[in-house]
């Protein structure tokens, strides 16, 4: 089977996920991802023409919640896992430059 994933696909996906790879890693990813597709391709051997896509694992509907506010965690807890923070905010690298 011809490979479906090439370096361009990896570049595009990497950009969408904001990840960076070097050339060796990219080559590895091309291989890995193609292997995954081949694996999943196995499912295409079945004829699913008359099968509705399965989205939900149960057939319950209208599982809704009343509009009631609840406090479950504190600000301190909220910030606990942030790699970078100050007392109030999560800090991330600047994603826009301020020069307009």
């Amino acid at each position, binding site marked *: 089977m011809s490979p479906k994933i090439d370096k361009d696909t990896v570049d595009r996906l990497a950009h969408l996920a904001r990840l960076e790879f070097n050339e060796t890693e990219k080559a590895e990813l091309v291989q890995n991802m193609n292997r995954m597709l081949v694996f999943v391709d196995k499912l295409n051997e079945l004829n699913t023409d008359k099968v509705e896509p399965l989205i939900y694992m149960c057939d319950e*509907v209208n599982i809704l919640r009343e509009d009631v506010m609840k406090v479950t965690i504190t600000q301190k807890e909220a910030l606990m896992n942030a790699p970078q923070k100050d007392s*109030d905010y999560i800090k991330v690298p600047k994603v*826009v430059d301020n020069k307009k």
Partner: protein
Amino acid sequence: MNIYDKYETVIGLEVHIQLLTNSKAYSSDSAEYGALPNTHVSVITLGHPGTLPKANKKVIEYAVRLGLALNCTITRENMYARKNYFYADLPKGYQITQDKTPICRGGHITIKDKDGNERVIHLTRIHMEEDAGKSIHDQDPFDTLIDLNRAGVALLEIVSEPELKNADEAYSYLSEVRKLVRHLDICDGNMEEGSLRCDANVSVMLKGSKTFGRRVEVKNMNSIRNVKLAIEHEIKRHIDLIEAGGTVDQDTRSFDASKGTTFSLRSKEMANDYRYFPEPDLPPVIVSVDYIEKIRSTMPALPDELFNKYKKELHLSDYDASFLTESKTIASYFEDLIQKTSNYKAAANWMMGTVKNYLNENAITIDQFPLPAHQLSALIKLVDDGKVSSSVASQTIFPALIKDPGQTPLKIAETLNLIQESNTGALQELIKEALQKYPDKVLEYKNGKTGLIGHFMGEVMKLSKGKADPKVANELMKKELEK
């Protein structure tokens, strides 16, 4: 011919309204604006693995309410979808929205064009989604600060068809949307605080062309006026570009309110590949006919309906009717008032004159107005019965009533000795007295100088200390002079 007249503009608006719910769209943390950063959060909002969202009932209710008000078709079987993109203020890496099954389809908003004619602007869809957090780029020199209080707050996105023809129509469309969402009590409509936001898709083409020009999306306009300015700027920019032999780039731009211009946000950040797929964590929501009818039965009268009622049934002018329906609170006060008086024109005049001035001078809204409608209707009756003149009612009794809202207008008029003299016998005496003072002038009047009646009336008013009912006195005076 002006080069700008060679082109026509096509505008579509995407309006996001933040819903007035207590909790967020898919989690129970507070949706309130203005709290300390990162205090209104939960593990769901923070996108922690293994957490499960649960949809807020109120969001469905508000979406149906808006859909009914805008004559949309309500989608019976609703699914949620994930819109995937990577950004620091979107902790999950996707926004929960609706893709193929927006809760409302079709519908329309009626606006007035610049000549006052009605124009129907069709809607594509309204769907439910959640807001992202807030990125603050200008407070820290090195980093962007993230506040996730807003992340997950319930939004409805209203998408119009590209049918608006100019910036003024966009202005009018947005004003209508804001009036309506406020009226329905589903959004506070505050653009400065971002609870109502608008993105404009603008393109220009030569008049009569069948193909739309290249489309530019403009964002970040924090008032209805700025939406208008941004669109005007874009139209001019596009035409200038085309006239100079260039082309318009498909682009997303931001409005700079200080310069009145737009600048490109074009960058790799904007790559539009959202890879929508159904959100498996939220089961479908089925909206039944019973449910829709239940919501319909609790809908308030809409501004448009009230406008037509005021015009057609109460015979008020366009101007009066539009003032009275501009805000829900004014409309409901007026509705209350017209239950209590049938002098609709007087009721409208009070609202638009004395009451409005009082609200403006004290910088308060009608909710804080101290007089209940029955007091105002009693005041109207006092004037209609000829007990006081309308100027005495608004200038003297109204302020006294505000100071002492427990008092009745009649009582105040009596206490302040303001009841007009309309007792014909008493007035007759005063008229005779006045005329006796000026026998020469009475003669002149009888010889045709009828303008002198004003002079006699003045004398009567003086004698009555301003309490003579001018209408009655005038008629009696004429009769007396014609004797």
